[in-house]
């Protein structure tokens, strides 16, 4: 999954190419940058190449050749085994459902919290923000046991909502922290103009503030989605039945006690990054815009 965080990196080079004056020949510095960018892109594509090379080897072929060699014959055994033994569509749906719910709810809560802290300037807001930040620093291992007991009592084990609730809290703690400082610098004039026009607080939030910070919110939403998608430890604890697994948990199922069926694992990894790639093609723009996209100067 490391590829996920790296994938947007080549984008700036593309953007740079568009803006370059096409008539002017490249300067040596530009050539150096270009070579570096190509090398960087190769380094990023390399793991995917490894996956592609090895996903189509039979286990015997894999065992008898190096990981960089071409397959002796195209074998779909790994992909077939993965598809037959694991319920991938179900896991994909679980992952999408959980990540989408978390990103939407967490952003809504972050906006409401940071409206109170950043715009409303409630008393003790510095401390409140600090507490939110600390909530983000709690190691997940510490949450493991108490939350497990809680969801057990609530009957939410192996239910996607156990993971959704947990990560809404964790992600919105970060979102609140970030948005609060952003809204703390929100121009007074705009707010005053709104109140002169007779806007209520709710109206100000909905029609003035949210549209202005929308780029930041969409970036936050995408980040929450990815972070939740990649979560491992807490979902591992809460989701125990085979029907409730998420994609990273499903891949973990392929690791044996003493040995791993490597070709199946590689094939599974290959299949499971396809949705991530599609996701990036859709949200590439949002991601490269950066997290402070909506900042008002």
């Amino acid at each position: 999954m490391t590829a996920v965080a790296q994938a947007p990196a080549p984008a700036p080079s593309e953007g740079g190419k568009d803006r370059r004056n096409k008539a002017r020949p490249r300067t040596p510095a530009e050539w150096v940058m270009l070579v570096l960018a190509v090398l960087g892109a190769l380094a990023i594509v390399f793991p995917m190449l490894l996956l592609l090379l090895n996903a189509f080897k039979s286990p015997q072929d894999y065992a008898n050749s190096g990981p960089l060699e071409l397959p002796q014959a195209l074998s779909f055994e790994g992909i077939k085994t993965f598809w037959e033994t694991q319920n991938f569509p179900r896991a994909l749906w679980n992952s999408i459902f959980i990540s989408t719910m978390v990103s939407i709810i967490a952003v809504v809560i972050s906006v409401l919290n940071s409206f109170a802290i950043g715009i409303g300037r409630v008393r003790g807001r510095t401390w409140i923000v600090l507490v939110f930040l600390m909530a983000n620093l709690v190691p997940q291992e510490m949450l493991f046991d108490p939350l497990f007991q809680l969801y057990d009592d609530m009957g939410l084990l192996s239910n996607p909502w156990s993971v959704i609730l947990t990560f809404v809290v964790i992600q919105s703690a970060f979102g609140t922290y970030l948005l609060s400082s952003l809204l703390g610098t929100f121009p007074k004039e705009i707010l005053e103009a709104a109140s002169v026009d007779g806007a209520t607080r709710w109206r100000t939030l909905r029609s003035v503030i949210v549209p202005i910070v929308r780029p930041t919110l969409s970036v936050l939403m995408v980040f929450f989605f990815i972070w939740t998608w990649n979560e491992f430890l807490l979902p591992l604890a809460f989701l125990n039945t085979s029907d409730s697994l998420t994609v990273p948990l499903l891949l973990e199922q392929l690791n044996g006690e003493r040995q791993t069926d490597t070709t199946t694992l590689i094939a599974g990894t290959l299949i499971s990054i396809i949705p991530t790639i599609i996701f990036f093609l859709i949200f590439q723009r949002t991601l490269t815009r950066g997290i402070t996209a909506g900042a008002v100067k």
Partner: protein
Amino acid sequence: MKYRITAATAVLAAGALSLTACSSGDGGDGGSSGAPADGDYTGETLTVMHYEGEESAMGKAWNLAIEIFEEETGATVDLQTTAFEDLNASAQQLFDSSDAPDVSEYNKGNGTAGQLAATGVILPLDEAYETYGWADKLSAGIDTIAKYDENGVMGSGSWYGVPNYGEFVFLYFNQDMFDEYGIEVPTDAAGIEAAMQAFVDEGVTPLTTSAQEYPMGQLWYQLALSQADRSWVDAYQLYTEEVDWTGPEVSYASGTLEDWVGKGYISKDASGMTAEDAGLAFINGDAPMFYSGSWWYGRMLEDVTDFEFGIANWPDTTLTPGSGGNIWVVPVESKQPELAEVFIDITMRPEVQALLGESGGLPVAADTADITDPDAQKLIELFNEVNERDGLSFYPDWPTPTFYGDLNSVMQGIVNGDVTADEANTQLMDYYESYVADLR
């Protein structure tokens, strides 16, 4: 493997289903006498959890057991397969929750099943052992890992689990490479060193192993065992008395490994290799010898295509690393403890055990006459030889919960030349005593 169709309808429904199914299981289990296998459990569900691959010997045998179980009891099985690491991380919580399976495979040993037994997360099976007579089927050495005392130390106390299979560690060798260089397959300890020297002279690293994972630790233990007797094993594994960390057993093991690394019998690369890497070096035909466990056997039969490989017990030793396999346990929150016992009993039946052996596993209660596959026979023969000399001595990392990592780091030190054999022994003693001193 997944049998998802039964449960695929809804996650919630699955939870609700097993909740409503709890009626008959609660209360006096084991009170009924005789094997209640003919009882009518139609409409009930038994949730079975394990982490063996569908194509593994255990996976095949247990699928057969599930079939027999469903036919005889009328109950349906909801099979949940998980991963070893998953269950290792979550069992302590999972087995004590509403999500607990009714019967589950679990990792044997003090740090794992022992800990669950000591904290009351799995149920004692003493009555079931009496009812079904499982103890008679398990040979000594196999049954050690099924009993745990109140501190979670194996070997005595109540029965907590039922092993279906055994496992042990031996030498895999590449017959073609031995033939190519005209080297004899070693049959005694001196022969091993001579053979390895002969390979080194030909420019071949003779022994592939991994210090990052279990293989080299197990080799270290085998070397110590070759100089030890049963009372040393009891001291080391069951804490009956103090282990002499300067004694001949440990000194020989660490000293020999240091020597072998120096002479190039073991590659310096071993410190960074995983067990998978080490095994692949053997399968590739790069290294003529690999010391590892029966769990590789099926894989070797399938993946070794370019040469003939052979198997042999480590020469000149009465003790061998090995044990009963992972065990069936009944979690404390099992809704069907009675049905769970019926299921476990079916896994011990001759036909299920025979299939396990036929598929490359080491059955604990099979009639050897039932097994006809020559490859399976070869393995079972080796295993029987170990059992005849009462050789099963468990694994080096069992004494403390962290000794696996501790031992591997010391092995890496030896391979890298960072520590001498004496320093290695002192380090191991410190790691070992820091946990065991309080238990003795």
